[in-house]
């Protein structure tokens, strides 16, 4: 490509604008936060609790729902059946719903009058205002990311590899765990990260299900409402930094586990 062409400069200018648009508010927020404000916030127990609650609940929600979501993703990748498009639409629905509306819908389901709420009540658990309720809200709005990423991964595994495994004596369960799943690991890891990220950043649905205990997004909102921008900002910076470190660690871990695997899969397909 001729790097001096007008086209090249237009592309470069537009790309820079978009990247600047993403970066500027974040950099501005960091620069506007003084180190003393930041460290004071880091030491604040309420902030620490909310960040820990957000991360742990989002992680558990992702982990628990992955057990159900991955088989569903495999089914969506491998089988054609009547109503498949409707089911795919259903999977994508939480992404397009306004999240406050999702929260209202979920509240009806998990409150003591709702189906799941009644069941939980039998074991003395009130899901509203409870970390389990928060996990359900996080999972509801973020599950699509994991299912879709895993479905794309399974669809990319050649069916003949699964057939070969069965011809060599593997039962369907063994075939799944020894061939399909290892070959889709990278997609699942990406979907896991996306679901985790989307879940922990959720505000709209959670604020309806559980204002308390406060997740980090709710805490930031509350500080902003109560005390203004300068109090909300250090908590936001802290939350973003923690999230960033965790994402980088997960990404490094999953890349190491899959680097060679993906290379050979591309060569084989």
């Amino acid at each position, binding site marked *: 490509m001729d790097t001096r062409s007008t086209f090249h400069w237009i592309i470069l200018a537009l790309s820079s604008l978009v990247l600047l648009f993403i970066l500027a508010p974040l950099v501005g927020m960091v620069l506007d936060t003084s180190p003393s404000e930041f460290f004071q916030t880091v030491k604040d127990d309420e902030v620490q609790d909310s960040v820990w609650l957000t991360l742990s609940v989002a992680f558990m929600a992702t982990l628990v729902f992955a057990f159900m979501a991955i088989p569903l993703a495999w089914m969506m990748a491998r089988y054609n059946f009547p109503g498949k498009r409707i089911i795919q639409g259903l999977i994508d629905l939480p992404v397009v719903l306004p999240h406050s509306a999702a929260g209202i819908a979920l509240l009806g389901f998990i409150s003591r009058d709702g189906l799941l709420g009644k069941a939980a009540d039998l074991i003395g658990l009130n899901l509203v205002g409870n970390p389990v309720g928060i996990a359900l809200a996080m999972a509801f709005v973020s599950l699509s990311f994991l299912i879709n990423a895993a479905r794309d991964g399974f669809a990319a595994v050649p069916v003949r590899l699964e057939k070969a495994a069965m*011809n*060599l*004596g593997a039962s369907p369960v*063994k075939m799944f765990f020894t061939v399909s799943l290892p070959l889709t690991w990278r997609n699942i890891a990406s979907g896991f990260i996306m679901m985790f990220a989307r879940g922990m950043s959720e505000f709209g649905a959670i604020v309806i299900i559980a204002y308390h205990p406060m997740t980090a997004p709710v805490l930031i909102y509350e500080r902003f409402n109560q005390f203004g921008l300068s109090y909300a900002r250090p908590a936001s910076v802290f939350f973003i930094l923690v999230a960033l470190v965790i994402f980088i660690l997960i990404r490094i871990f999953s890349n190491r586990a899959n680097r060679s695997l993906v*290379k*050979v899969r591309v060569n*084989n397909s």
Partner: protein
Amino acid sequence: MLELKNISKSYDNFALKDIKLEISKGEYFILLGRSGAGKSQLLEIIAGLRSPDSGSIFLNGKEITREKIQNRKTGMVFQDFAIFPHLTVYENIAYALKIRHLPRKQIQAAVRRMAENVNIAHLLDRRTDDLSGGERQRVAVARTLVTSPDIILLDEPMASIDTTLRDEVRRLLRKINSMGMTMLHVTHDYGEAIRLADRVGVIHNGRIIQTGIPDEVFSKPVNKFVARFAGVRNFFSVKISPEEGRHVAVSGKLKYKLPEGDYPENGLMIIESDAINLSLKEQKDSDNCIKGIVRELNRAESAYEVFIDAGDLFHVLVSNKDFERLSLNQEQTVFLFFSADKLKVI
């Protein structure tokens, strides 16, 4: 022994119809057919990867039509080998044994023995992504053989192999067969059938239309499709009648003298391209001599392809030496001549 009884299976736009086939123990059977003829689907049905709509499959006297895939003892080698990319060569070969929970030492011994058998012992620690086509083929074969199947099903085993490596793979397949393994090999390549098969079958549009030993099938094809597989390019619809004590075949204005024998009234007359001789002068002593005009000349591997319009359009293979001797040119008039016994009617 493998026996297929009236296997039928419908797909969206294709069907396998009433497939009957018997393959003896230790036999090397090649099923020939174009792509889309149903060869791979039939292998998948035998292996249990798909169920037939009707019919039965017997292997060594035991019905396996509804048997679970993993209990069938049919080892399939897929067209592109289906090597597991996330496993090493050793792990690929050991896969079936690990699944059966054999002791580790037994697995190691079996994998090494099998790898030595197919000459890949030096590759055992390698990942599979940088193996050559021939090496991948060997891994796939070893991975299948280690399960001690009763029959090996080979789906176009040469299709993903460089031409230069095919002799090597053929030697490997012959070696496996010589150890007593029953082989069912599907291909579209007539040459493979000639080189490897004890018996061949030809499948077309989901039906097996002819089976027999290769010489018999290709010298007495039952129809135009089978004849095409044998490389025959000259087919003419003819009416046959007795004339002056022998049979003649009439195609348009042309008459061909046929060898002695019984013939139907109508048939398809065939003659192989290299059975036709060319001359610049009429050959009155020949059973059949026809005047024609050269329409097209193409250089082939070790000869020239010449298309000659003599009323019927003939495809003739001319050796380089004859081509130079005759100095053939387009639109040149030549005489085609051949003895009656080169003609066959199917």
